[in-house]
């Protein structure tokens, strides 16, 4: 195994312990929910559950012995990263209600805002917005028109 102690690592063992415990919880859940399945359907998930249980315990033990550490991550803009996750998640959840086009335009404009790190000028806003709308229109046309993908129109509007 490659999991030999990394003498140069200055990372945290706590994250690995948490990860090991989370794996144990996941494995226990998989085994618990497999109890009502038929023998044929349960055999594979149970096997994976048992293996995950073993791996999770091993990870905790390795981390306690200082052999499993997570390297420190480069700092970044947490606010922007969180905003991106929220926007994309909200986008995926509102596709059906707002419709594909409306939710996509809204989400893309918001994403454009959080991905830009410099000062905005009126010209730049217009150029970026027009470019983005053209890209959305192009792909929307390709999928809805040419490939006949039934993209949701939105319950909100009907």
């Amino acid at each position, binding site marked *: *195994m*490659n*999991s*030999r102690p990394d003498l140069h690592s200055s990372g945290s063992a706590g994250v*690995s312990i948490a*990860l090991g415990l989370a*794996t144990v919880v996941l*494995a226990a859940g*998989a085994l618990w*929910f*497999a109890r009502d*399945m*038929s023998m*044929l*359907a*349960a*055999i*594979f*998930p149970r096997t*994976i559950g048992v*293996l*995950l249980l073993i*791996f*999770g315990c091993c*990870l905790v033990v*390795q981390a306690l012995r200082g052999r*499993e550490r997570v*390297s420190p*991550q*480069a700092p*970044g803009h947490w606010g*922007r*990263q969180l*905003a*991106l*996750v929220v926007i*994309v*998640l909200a*986008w*995926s*959840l509102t*596709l059906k209600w707002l419709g594909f086009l409306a939710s*996509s335009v809204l*989400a893309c*404009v918001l*994403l*454009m805002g*959080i*991905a*830009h790190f*410099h000062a905005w000028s009126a010209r730049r806003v217009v150029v*970026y917005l027009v*470019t983005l709308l053209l*890209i*959305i229109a192009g792909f*929307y046309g390709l*999928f809805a028109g040419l490939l006949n*993908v*039934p993209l*949701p129109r939105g319950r909100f509007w009907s």
Partner: protein
Amino acid sequence: METLGFMLAALSPFNLLLAVAGVAAGIIIGSLPGLSATMAVAVLVPVTFGMPTESALILLGAIYTGAIYGGSYAAILVNTPGTPSAIATTFDGYPMARRGDGDLAVTLSTLSSVIGGLVGGLALFCLAPLLALVALKFGPVEYFWLAIFGLTLISSLSEGSTLKGFIGAGIGLLLSTVGVAVVGGDTRYTFGSQFLLGGVETISALIGLYCIPVLIELVATPSEHLKPPEASRGVRFREGVTLMFRGKWNALRSAIIGTIVAILPGAGGSIASLVSYSEARRASPRSEQFGKGEPDGIIATETANNATVGGGFIPTFVLGIPGTPPDAVILGALLVQGFRTGPEMFTTNASVTYTFMGGLLVATVLMLPIGLLIGRYAFKSIVSVPKAILVPTIAFMTIIGTYAIRNNPFDVVVMVVLGVAGWLLARWGIKPSPIVLGLILGPIAEQGFVQGYLMGNATGSVAGVFFGRPLSLGIIALTVLFALYPLWSARRKRTQGEVVAHEQST
């Protein structure tokens, strides 16, 4: 001589035009995440209904080969495999692009794809009936062992900790069990939700696991996403050829692996490229550089996945069993045209079959100029696009691509959730590749295992079924060998290190 005449018929102006159009369309469709080669072929099948059969097949084959190659663009330039078979291309392609060698990576991918495509095409031409017989010998138990063999790749795919790699594979395997069971039909881990009945869609999961983390990282810092080239360097063709020549044995081995894996129905380009990558890393004197932008990594994966195109047609034509999912669509198109697969493909319908083979080889060769041209502009445009446009564009492509797979908004939610989870897991040391490997191999392993188990129960010897067939034993031996090799290699390096340290101290 007659065969050669049939093959030369592929050079008619109409067939050449179809090959050019097919390759270009395939490259563009394949480069968009979510639009797989299967979808590219399926969408364009109706266009071929009015065409002569050989021309229809040439167009579909060209789209297929172009899409498999096109998948490498997104893998190299935005770290998102355009098609599942380009998963392993992200490992070294994206690091190369980040350090400013994206143009060289695209050129290498083009050259490798052409070589892989030619080897697969020639194997189809020369060995089709012989190799198809080997595929027939594979039963459920052999598929189970093949999947287990695939899981041994985790040791080479998990960067850093093998234990975390195995946990990632376990998560992927568990995700593959969600929905209706492959054998028996039970519903598993759906928690009463009708949306989960269809399970976790592999391509959606793949897009999420690879693409969402890229988006999250893109907005983390104001720095450029890819290092722009210092000066215009063209496509760096000569440099690419030199690297290809250096990696000629790697390319040949990967092409052979790709062809063989493609002959096994259901295995597909993703497994072929992962196996080849693992083998290239194992055999390379620069194995430490793999995953950090090693050109040999791209050569291995791209040669293998394009070799699956020709290889996959072998069981399709000879046995009527599609080797890869796009082959299934092409088989359907062939049946619509009124053709039956089997020995008559090489006797009564030899003109169609050999003209198609010629067309496939021509399309593969045409991929070189078309690919280099499109690749050059793809790299230039991705480098020059500001983040404020790139981030929403990639996000939009992932959302629309995921939705289009099954026209299901729930798949989009699953994709985003898995993507965010994948990003967090990657920060904690569990990379997406073992999860994806588990997700892909899970159904193959489970189906093979349960069917083998039932066969064993019926014959009264489960062990006999799993360990009694020579092919199974061969795969088990390979699995044990490949699983133990990293341990042996690490031990040897440690011993050598200790010897050197001892010599230096004395």
